[in-house]
């Protein structure tokens, strides 16, 4: 009996270890030296001391800068080029420095970031989307005195600051709208809808032709956030330019006509079959395929959409078509574009290499690197980085932005539980459930409960 167990165990272990022996692929392991453990670099930086003004070659010990992000997926878009550019430029300044990219694609990144910050184990340079609250908590370095602050697009300054101090910068900004397949529209004689009802009418024609009107991937909740937010922020801004602050002060209602009209519009969209049947179970990457393959005629997305579609044509071998853009509008044809930072970058207040981090950040925010990062599908958050719009859809988007009023993104000043509550309600409706069960009351309750999480400008 003993023998049997021992032989079994040994056989298993041997088999498994021999499997481990082959296929040890080091090719994917880029940039940084993995062996430099955190405690080692802590010892070196202690000897470097804080804010020393002389950068570069002052010490010979190799050090590692960690940059964390959620969108720097390898092999996608301009990410590889961006990373390389950053590493090369940083090496020029600090020959002994190396960069470690901690990228965790998707929403899990934010979960992890919070836990890391709470336990003081976060990266030196942090990409995030909630600079004010992180700044408030003291996690970020005050960057008000940095040279690039004057280069920040004005609209972003408010969203990157807390209590008058700048804690981050937006490398790219976003504004959402409808991207559509020009060929399908032409074939079916549809013109870009100028009102909500025209959108529904277009949808009817598309459904008759067995084409999905709008492809959505609500498994990634942020897509719903921005799409629903489009209607909500439009209604809110029409009522009051400081709507969300008004709610905070009690002069506007969270469950008022603005929110309700947005929910109502979504109900109509769902009931009139404007969405793909798999709306709730597919995610953003899958909607890219639905759109680029011609299965769906429209998609509501950010400024990267045109470029992403081009990329998808090549990578999946679909027949290319020209992509157009038109903004979201309400039943009266009113358009207000929501604008906000997309990728914000900051420095960890507890970094062990403050000067190096500041220099690295300046590099990242320099016009050349912003251009590399944003590629053809981005809008820069820094004024001097002028990205030329090569694709027609981009030109159309920039045109609209120039000629329309703008507002902040929906929910910028609501606690997360409120947004989640409203979005869950919308999801329920899309999924065929019935609303009107006191959900909005619940949302209001959560608002009061989590009011302390709101950071007003």
């Amino acid at each position, binding site marked *: *009996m*003993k023998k049997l*167990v*021992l032989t*079994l*165990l040994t*056989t*298993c272990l041997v*088999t*498994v*270890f021999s*499997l*481990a*022996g*082959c*296929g*040890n*692929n*080091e*090719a*994917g*392991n880029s940039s940084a030296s*993995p062996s430099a453990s*955190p*405690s080692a670099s802590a010892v070196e930086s202690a000897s470097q001391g804080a804010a020393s003004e002389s950068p570069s070659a002052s010490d010979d010990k190799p050090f590692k800068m960690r940059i964390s992000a959620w969108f720097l*997926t*390898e*092999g*996608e878009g301009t990410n590889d080029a961006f990373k390389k550019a950053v590493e090369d430029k940083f090496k020029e300044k600090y020959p002994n420095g190396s960069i470690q990219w*901690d990228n*965790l*694609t*998707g929403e*899990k990144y934010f979960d*992890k970031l919070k*836990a*890391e910050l*709470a*336990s*003081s*184990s976060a990266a030196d340079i942090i990409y995030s989307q909630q600079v004010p609250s992180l700044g408030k908590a003291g996690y970020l370095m005050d960057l008000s005195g940095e040279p690039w602050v004057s280069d920040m697009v004005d609209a972003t300054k408010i969203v990157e600051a807390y209590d008058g101090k700048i804690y981050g910068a937006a490398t790219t900004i976003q504004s959402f709208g409808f991207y559509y397949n020009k060929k399908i529209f032409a074939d079916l004689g549809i013109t870009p809808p100028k009102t909500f009802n025209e959108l529904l009418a277009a949808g009817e024609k598309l459904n008759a032709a067995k084409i999905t009107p709008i492809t959505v991937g609500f498994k990634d909740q942020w897509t719903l956030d921005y799409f629903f937010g489009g209607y909500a922020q439009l209604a809110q801004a029409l009522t009051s330019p400081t709507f969300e602050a008004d709610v905070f002060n009690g002069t506007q209602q969270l469950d008022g006509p603005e929110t309700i009209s947005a929910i109502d519009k979504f109900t109509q969209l769902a009931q009139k079959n404007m969405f793909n049947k798999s709306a709730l179970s597919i*995610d953003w*990457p*899958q909607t*890219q*395929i639905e759109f680029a393959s011609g299965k769906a005629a429209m998609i509501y997305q950010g400024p990267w959409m045109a470029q992403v579609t081009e990329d998808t044509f090549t990578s999946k071998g679909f027949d290319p078509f020209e992509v157009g853009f038109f903004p979201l509008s309400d039943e009266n044809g009113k358009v207000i574009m929501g604008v906000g930072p997309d990728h914000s970058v900051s420095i960890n207040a507890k970094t062990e290499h403050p000067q190096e981090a500041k220099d690295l950040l300046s590099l990242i925010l320099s016009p050349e690197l912003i251009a590399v990062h944003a590629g053809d599908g981005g809008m820069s958050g820094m004024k001097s980085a002028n990205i030329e719009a090569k694709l027609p859809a981009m030109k159309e988007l920039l045109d609209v932005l120039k000629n329309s009023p703008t507002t902040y993104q929906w929910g910028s000043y609501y606690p997360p539980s409120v947004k989640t509550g409203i979005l869950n309600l919308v999801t329920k409706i899309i999924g065929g459930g019935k609303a009107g069960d006191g959900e909005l009351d619940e949302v209001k309750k959560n608002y009061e409960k989590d009011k302390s999480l709101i950071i007003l400008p």
Partner: protein
Amino acid sequence: MHSSSVRSLREKFFDRLLEIGMIILALLVLYPCYYMFEASVKLPKEFYEPLKFPSRIFWGNYDNVFERVQVGRALLNTLLICGGTLVLLIIVASMAGYTISRNRHKLFQILFVLFLAGMIIPFQTSMVPIYKLAQSLHLMNTRTLLVLLYTAGTIPFATMIYVGFTKGIPRELEEAASIDGYGPLRMYWLIIFPLLLPATGTLIVTTVFGFWNDFIGPLLYLTDKDKMTLITQIFVFKSERSSDWGGIFALCSLATLPLILLFVVTQKYMIKGLTAGAIKG
């Protein structure tokens, strides 16, 4: 008296029917696993015709996966973590289980209840405190942390198994050993532990799959991709390239294959182990 060997033709017929029915059911149950393997060798464009049999075996997805993901590395990490946990767990739990079973002192009975109570604590509650703890112990982003966490989490179950199996060892052995001059440590490791090997075997075989397949631990506590386990890599891969189904399933297949092999080899033993734990627990 013939008893069970006398069975009517009718019974035999129904049994045969039942067997066939079960085989069909079994095949249906296995279908998702089959689907996973099949999808991993299908050409990308054939993927969207789910019921179609692959026109040929396409290894491209695997090539793709090996290029993008450090499969060998991930496998090694999984092995290290599983191995480390098992070793630590066996050592501490067997000693504890043996003591609890043998020593009548109330202290140990309370201890046992404490362990069992721990089984109820869900990980969500402790997530952030563990993060802070790991930081102060300088164990962030180490596989050691995972080993310790898994061990701690499995101590209740493991102790239970050892307590049960120790009951089957006659006390006379220990009495004889102490008369022969064996100290407690020697007595334990040279005499008792070898006799507890069935328990150890059971423990390994019932828990290793859990350790192998855990993904939340590495996802939360490991930040370096080259320390991540195989299963976590699937999750990360899916987040990064969620429309590359061929690749996703290739990775899934790679992660499942060793387990299937292990399972087939130790199947009988697992069943014995489960039951022994169940009955004596």
